């Protein structure tokens, strides 16, 4: 039984009539997912790839059992869409949309926590347990079934690393795209907790990037909790020029954290192996699995 998603997961797609929504509804169905309903305000009664469309999440949830909502609506409409899914009590909400205003992301995250809803994203590719199920937009065939758990802030780097592993015979138990934004729902720590007791996951690959403090928080959690599984981390952005910062407020709160170096050092101190290149991730996995 995979964590988060499996072959029984019943999915709702919000924004299903849009270009992205209809395309990925098709791809989800090709991956043998049960897409039970779609939502598009003002478009209720239509069908997309045979999936019935409703005006509201409430309406869809009244007619169908829904385990997860995949949200593909454009950023300006994400706040009401996500709030609808959370208020309808859908246990897993995945926000794919990028360029979500951070104030909206904070509001959504706050509400999800109040209601005990698992929120993934925004700005993510979603979640996949290869061969079992996906609630996301990743091309299924570059992922394969196996025992590596992946937690990543970057969508395309997850594709890259998973496909590199796949082509070399290493499959993945679950890949969680936590998203690259500042105010994401699930962070590294929450994802690590999910993998902690997952019997299907032997080795964990963490993919971070510059900005934010998620990797530093994960390093502290790993150290304090005596994390039991072998782990390798790759941090993108070592050669990125440092952005100019306005005012002192950011530095007061996070000091020197946020750089690739700070993240690598923090994780290294917590006993995580640091991969300097993407190929070093493959070498680590070959040795440890």
């Amino acid at each position, binding site marked *: 039984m995979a964590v988060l998603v499996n072959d029984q997961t019943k999915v709702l797609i919000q924004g299903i009539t849009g270009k992205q929504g209809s395309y990925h509804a098709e791809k989800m169905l090709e991956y043998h997912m049960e897409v039970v309903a779609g939502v598009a305000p003002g478009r209720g009664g239509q069908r997309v790839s045979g999936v019935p469309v409703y005006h509201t999440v409430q309406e869809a949830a009244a007619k169908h059992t829904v385990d997860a909502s995949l949200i593909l609506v454009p950023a300006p409409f994400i706040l009401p869409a996500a709030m609808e899914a959370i208020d309808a009590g859908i246990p897993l909400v995945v926000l794919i949309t990028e360029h979500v205003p951070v*104030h909206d992301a904070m509001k959504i995250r706050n509400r999800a926590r109040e209601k005990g809803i698992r929120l993934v994203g925004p700005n993510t590719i979603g979640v996949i347990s290869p061969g079992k199920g996906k609630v996301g937009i990743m091309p299924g065939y570059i992922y394969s079934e196996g025992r590596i758990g992946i937690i990543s802030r970057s969508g395309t780097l997850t594709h890259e690393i998973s496909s590199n592993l796949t082509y070399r015979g290493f499959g993945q138990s679950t890949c969680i795209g936590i998203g690259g934004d500042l105010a994401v729902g699930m962070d590294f720590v929450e994802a690590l907790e999910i993998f902690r007791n997952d019997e299907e996951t032997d080795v964990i690959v963490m993919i971070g990037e510059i900005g934010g403090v998620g990797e530093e928080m994960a390093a502290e959690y790993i150290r304090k909790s005596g994390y039991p599984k072998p782990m390798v981390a790759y941090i993108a*952005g070592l050669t990125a020029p440092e952005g100019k910062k306005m005012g002192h407020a950011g530095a007061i709160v996070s000091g020197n954290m946020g750089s690739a170096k700070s993240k690598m050092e923090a994780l290294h101190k917590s006993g995580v192996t640091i991969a300097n290149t993407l190929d070093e991730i493959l070498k680590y996995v070959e040795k440890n699995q």
Partner: protein
Amino acid sequence: MDCFEYEGKSIFMRYGIPIPQGRITDQQKGAVDIFNELGKPCVLKAQVLSGKRGKAGGIKIAETREEVEEAFDMISGMEIGEEKVRRILVEEKLDIKEEFYLGMTIDPFLKAPLLMFSLEGGMDIEELAEKHPEKLVKIKVNPNASTVDYSEILAKIGLENKDKMKDQLLRMMDQLVTLFHETDATTAEINPLVLTGQGELIAADSKLVIDDSAMFRQKDLNLEDRRDEDQDEGEKRAEALGLAFVPLDETGDIGTIAGGAGLALATMDAVRYYGGKPANFLDVGGGVTEEQMREAVRIVAAKKGLKAMIINVFGGINNCETMAKGIDQALDEVDKSMILVVKMRGHSQEEGWSILEKRGIPIVKHGTTEEAVKMLLSRIRGE
């Protein structure tokens, strides 16, 4: 979007936060006019986004007409950081009794807005926060609610500061919290917040940053598009097309294009790791069109002295066929001697590969980013 001081202050004013009297000018005569209107000693402040303004001599006090002219001439045309001074803010010189710090930002640990206050404001606030964290009060603000409990800040102020200041500060904190929520700010900072000899609290400076992702609903702020004054042509075109493009140092001779910020960073990192010099960062983003891809290639290829280019994309939220078509269109216009390697897989990969194969472009289909980078570097060396 970073706001200039005068823009931030005009937004402060809309929310009722008191600011010094004054306005901007780009003419010496304009500066003198403002000085005459105010009828008191002035401060001339270079309007740049860089934080090193004070130390670079971009702020001058003037008490006479001659001093205003002299200060204007010294500041105008200065370069601070890499920014040219184009506008100068001329405003009344405040009678400063005390300097405080009041600021808001988004706390990356809490993932919530944070309000911060200190009785010791000014340039050394970061040092103070590090060495004497007890002197800085931080309050988490609920992102879904506008009411905030300020009691911790009020307790800090102490008895020597009378009720009048407390009332003013309470009002100002409410105004700042409202501004922060309503303008989609990610930083809103008043440093210093000045207590004048007359007992008034005035925002002597402003540092305001508005979330780029929220600009679609912040048109009322009238942040005229001046940010591109220091951008080159390529940056302007990339911005207009919604491509995240950052030119790197002059000597870089390997162009990079990738889909997704993480992969774009990793591609640059790999070029550098194996001894190449990346020329730029370019993330085409999600939902990329043929036009965006074509222009991305043209913008990156336009750099002088560019030897080679690596394109590293996935068909995830993007489509390989669409991207290949864009690349194909651009190739008619770029220098034929430029060495190109494309790594591409994902949705519609077969269609994408076939378009590029007709052009004879080397494609990395199943290999890693590093294999693609190594292939590019060996081709540059003529191997």
